[in-house]
Protein backbone atom coordinates (compact mmCIF):
# COMPACT_ATOMS: atom_id res chain seq x y z
CA UNK A 1 0.00 0.00 0.00
CA UNK A 2 3.06 2.24 -0.06
CA UNK A 3 4.51 4.36 -2.82
CA UNK A 4 7.76 5.09 -1.02
CA UNK A 5 10.60 4.03 -3.30
CA UNK A 6 13.96 3.03 -1.93
CA UNK A 7 17.10 2.22 -3.89
CA UNK A 8 19.18 0.17 -4.04
CA UNK A 9 17.42 -2.90 -2.67
CA UNK A 10 20.75 -4.48 -1.69
CA UNK A 11 24.25 -3.12 -1.25
CA UNK A 12 27.47 -4.76 -0.16
CA UNK A 13 30.39 -2.71 1.13
CA UNK A 14 33.74 -3.27 2.69
CA UNK A 15 34.60 -1.80 6.04
CA UNK A 16 35.57 1.84 5.70
CA UNK A 17 33.68 2.29 2.43
CA UNK A 18 30.86 4.77 1.90
CA UNK A 19 27.35 3.41 1.59
CA UNK A 20 24.60 5.56 0.12
CA UNK A 21 20.88 4.85 0.01
CA UNK A 22 18.10 6.88 -1.55
CA UNK A 23 14.43 7.34 -0.87
CA UNK A 24 11.63 8.98 -2.79
CA UNK A 25 8.81 9.71 -0.35
CA UNK A 26 5.18 9.33 -1.26
CA UNK A 27 3.98 12.30 -3.30
CA UNK A 28 2.82 15.16 -1.12
CA UNK A 29 4.38 13.80 2.07
CA UNK A 30 6.61 16.44 3.69
CA UNK A 31 7.86 14.29 6.58
CA UNK A 32 10.49 11.60 6.04
CA UNK A 33 11.97 9.17 8.55
CA UNK A 34 14.95 6.82 8.38
CA UNK A 35 15.10 3.73 10.57
CA UNK A 36 17.65 0.97 10.91
CA UNK A 37 16.33 -2.55 11.54
CA UNK A 38 18.90 -5.08 12.73
CA UNK A 39 18.87 -8.85 12.36
CA UNK A 40 17.02 -9.16 15.68
CA UNK A 41 14.16 -7.10 14.19
CA UNK A 42 14.94 -4.16 16.47
CA UNK A 43 14.23 -0.73 15.03
CA UNK A 44 16.51 2.22 15.66
CA UNK A 45 15.36 5.71 14.72
CA UNK A 46 18.10 7.56 12.83
CA UNK A 47 16.75 10.90 11.61
CA UNK A 48 13.63 12.63 10.38
CA UNK A 49 12.98 15.61 8.14
CA UNK A 50 10.15 17.98 7.44
CA UNK A 51 10.69 19.13 3.90
CA UNK A 52 14.42 19.89 3.84
CA UNK A 53 14.88 20.51 7.57
CA UNK A 54 16.11 18.00 10.14
CA UNK A 55 13.62 17.54 12.97
CA UNK A 56 15.44 15.01 15.15
CA UNK A 57 18.51 12.81 14.83
CA UNK A 58 20.45 10.55 17.11
CA UNK A 59 24.08 11.02 18.05
CA UNK A 60 25.32 8.22 15.79
CA UNK A 61 23.64 9.77 12.79
CA UNK A 62 25.14 13.14 13.51
CA UNK A 63 28.65 11.73 13.72
CA UNK A 64 28.87 9.00 11.09
CA UNK A 65 25.97 9.46 8.75
CA UNK A 66 25.14 12.14 6.25
CA UNK A 67 21.47 12.60 5.40
CA UNK A 68 19.51 15.10 3.40
CA UNK A 69 16.16 15.67 1.74
CA UNK A 70 16.76 18.30 -0.96
CA UNK A 71 13.78 19.79 -2.75
CA UNK A 72 12.96 18.09 -6.06
CA UNK A 73 15.49 15.31 -5.44
CA UNK A 74 15.41 11.99 -3.58
CA UNK A 75 16.25 11.94 0.10
CA UNK A 76 19.50 10.17 0.88
CA UNK A 77 21.26 8.51 3.77
CA UNK A 78 24.99 7.93 3.52
CA UNK A 79 27.28 6.15 5.92
CA UNK A 80 30.64 7.86 5.65
CA UNK A 81 32.77 4.90 6.74
CA UNK A 82 30.90 1.61 7.01
CA UNK A 83 31.41 -0.67 9.99
CA UNK A 84 30.39 -4.31 10.40
CA UNK A 85 27.74 -3.26 12.92
CA UNK A 86 26.05 -1.14 10.25
CA UNK A 87 24.85 -4.27 8.45
CA UNK A 88 21.08 -3.93 8.63
CA UNK A 89 17.91 -3.11 6.73
CA UNK A 90 17.57 0.66 6.28
CA UNK A 91 13.96 1.73 6.06
CA UNK A 92 12.64 5.03 4.81
CA UNK A 93 9.12 6.14 5.65
CA UNK A 94 7.06 9.18 4.82
CA UNK A 95 3.91 10.77 6.21
CA UNK A 96 1.65 13.78 5.85
CA UNK A 97 2.73 14.77 9.33
CA UNK A 98 0.86 16.59 12.07
CA UNK A 99 -2.27 14.84 13.25
CA UNK A 100 -2.26 12.56 10.20
CA UNK A 101 1.06 10.97 10.98
CA UNK A 102 0.46 7.49 9.53
CA UNK A 103 3.82 6.22 8.30
CA UNK A 104 4.27 4.51 4.96
CA UNK A 105 7.48 2.56 4.54
CA UNK A 106 9.51 1.66 1.50
CA UNK A 107 10.84 -1.86 1.03
CA UNK A 108 14.19 -0.95 2.49
CA UNK A 109 17.83 -1.12 1.49
CA UNK A 110 19.65 -4.11 2.92
CA UNK A 111 23.26 -3.24 3.67
CA UNK A 112 25.90 -5.88 4.24
CA UNK A 113 29.29 -4.70 5.44
CA UNK A 114 31.95 -7.35 4.94
Amino acid sequence: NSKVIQTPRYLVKGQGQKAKMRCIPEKGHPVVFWYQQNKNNEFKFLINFQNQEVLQQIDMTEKRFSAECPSNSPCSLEIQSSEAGDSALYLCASSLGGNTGQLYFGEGSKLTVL
Partner: protein
Amino acid sequence: GDQVEQSPSALSLHEGTSSALRCNFTTTTRSVQWFRQNSRGSLINLFYLASGTKENGRLKSAFDSKELYSTLHIRDAQLEDSGTYFCAAEDSGGSNAKLTFGKGTKLSVKS
Protein backbone atom coordinates in the same frame (compact mmCIF):
# COMPACT_ATOMS: atom_id res chain seq x y z
CA GLY B 1 13.18 -1.00 30.51
CA ASP B 2 11.70 -0.86 27.05
CA GLN B 3 9.29 1.95 26.25
CA VAL B 4 7.13 -0.43 24.20
CA GLU B 5 6.55 -3.95 25.49
CA GLN B 6 4.97 -6.20 22.89
CA SER B 7 3.52 -9.64 23.54
CA PRO B 8 3.58 -12.43 22.70
CA SER B 9 6.91 -12.63 20.87
CA ALA B 10 5.62 -15.52 18.77
CA LEU B 11 2.19 -16.94 18.03
CA SER B 12 0.97 -19.93 16.06
CA LEU B 13 -2.65 -20.08 14.91
CA HIS B 14 -4.68 -22.52 12.87
CA GLU B 15 -6.67 -21.10 10.01
CA GLY B 16 -10.03 -19.80 11.13
CA THR B 17 -9.04 -19.13 14.73
CA SER B 18 -8.66 -15.75 16.41
CA SER B 19 -6.23 -14.12 18.78
CA ALA B 20 -4.93 -10.79 20.06
CA LEU B 21 -1.59 -9.08 20.24
CA ARG B 22 -0.82 -6.48 22.87
CA CYS B 23 1.52 -3.56 23.42
CA ASN B 24 2.06 -1.88 26.76
CA PHE B 25 3.64 1.55 26.92
CA THR B 26 5.69 2.82 29.81
CA THR B 27 5.31 6.51 28.94
CA THR B 28 2.61 8.81 27.59
CA THR B 29 1.98 8.07 23.93
CA ARG B 30 0.28 10.40 21.43
CA SER B 31 -0.69 7.68 19.02
CA VAL B 32 0.04 4.10 18.07
CA GLN B 33 0.54 2.43 14.70
CA TRP B 34 0.48 -1.25 13.84
CA PHE B 35 2.48 -2.77 11.01
CA ARG B 36 2.89 -6.20 9.42
CA GLN B 37 6.27 -7.10 7.93
CA ASN B 38 6.51 -9.86 5.34
CA SER B 39 9.45 -12.13 4.62
CA ARG B 40 10.85 -9.66 2.08
CA GLY B 41 11.00 -6.95 4.71
CA SER B 42 8.08 -4.87 3.43
CA LEU B 43 6.19 -3.10 6.22
CA ILE B 44 2.48 -2.55 5.68
CA ASN B 45 0.70 -0.01 7.83
CA LEU B 46 -2.38 -1.65 9.30
CA PHE B 47 -3.68 1.00 11.70
CA TYR B 48 -3.02 4.48 13.01
CA LEU B 49 -4.87 5.34 16.22
CA ALA B 50 -4.80 8.44 18.37
CA SER B 51 -7.59 6.98 20.52
CA GLY B 52 -10.46 4.50 20.50
CA THR B 53 -10.82 1.60 18.10
CA LYS B 54 -10.61 0.96 14.37
CA GLU B 55 -11.62 -2.02 12.33
CA ASN B 56 -10.52 -3.18 8.89
CA GLY B 57 -11.90 -6.47 7.71
CA ARG B 58 -10.76 -9.20 10.07
CA LEU B 59 -8.45 -6.88 11.97
CA LYS B 60 -9.45 -4.63 14.83
CA SER B 61 -7.24 -2.40 16.93
CA ALA B 62 -7.78 -0.45 20.11
CA PHE B 63 -5.71 2.18 21.89
CA ASP B 64 -6.21 3.26 25.49
CA SER B 65 -3.98 6.29 26.06
CA LYS B 66 -4.85 6.52 29.75
CA GLU B 67 -4.13 2.88 30.57
CA LEU B 68 -1.14 2.93 28.17
CA TYR B 69 -1.84 -0.08 25.99
CA SER B 70 -2.97 -1.07 22.54
CA THR B 71 -4.30 -4.32 21.13
CA LEU B 72 -4.58 -5.87 17.68
CA HIS B 73 -7.24 -8.54 17.25
CA ILE B 74 -7.05 -10.97 14.35
CA ARG B 75 -10.30 -12.75 13.61
CA ASP B 76 -10.62 -15.85 11.41
CA ALA B 77 -6.89 -16.04 10.73
CA GLN B 78 -5.80 -16.81 7.16
CA LEU B 79 -2.50 -18.06 5.80
CA GLU B 80 -1.71 -14.63 4.35
CA ASP B 81 -1.84 -13.11 7.85
CA SER B 82 1.51 -14.76 8.60
CA GLY B 83 4.32 -12.33 9.21
CA THR B 84 5.81 -10.25 11.97
CA TYR B 85 3.57 -7.64 13.57
CA PHE B 86 4.96 -4.51 15.14
CA CYS B 87 3.32 -1.83 17.19
CA ALA B 88 4.94 1.60 17.33
CA ALA B 89 4.29 4.42 19.77
CA GLU B 90 4.61 8.06 18.82
CA ASP B 91 6.54 10.06 21.37
CA SER B 92 4.50 12.76 23.07
CA GLY B 93 7.03 15.51 22.41
CA GLY B 94 5.36 17.48 19.62
CA SER B 95 4.03 16.55 16.21
CA ASN B 96 6.06 14.51 13.74
CA ALA B 97 7.88 12.88 16.64
CA LYS B 98 9.69 9.62 16.06
CA LEU B 99 8.05 6.26 16.63
CA THR B 100 9.40 3.73 19.09
CA PHE B 101 8.80 0.17 17.94
CA GLY B 102 8.05 -2.95 19.92
CA LYS B 103 10.15 -6.05 19.30
CA GLY B 104 7.47 -7.71 17.24
CA THR B 105 5.17 -10.71 17.29
CA LYS B 106 5.99 -13.42 14.78
CA LEU B 107 2.69 -14.91 13.66
CA SER B 108 2.48 -18.23 11.86
CA VAL B 109 -0.88 -19.30 10.51
CA LYS B 110 -1.15 -22.98 9.63
CA SER B 111 -3.73 -24.91 7.67
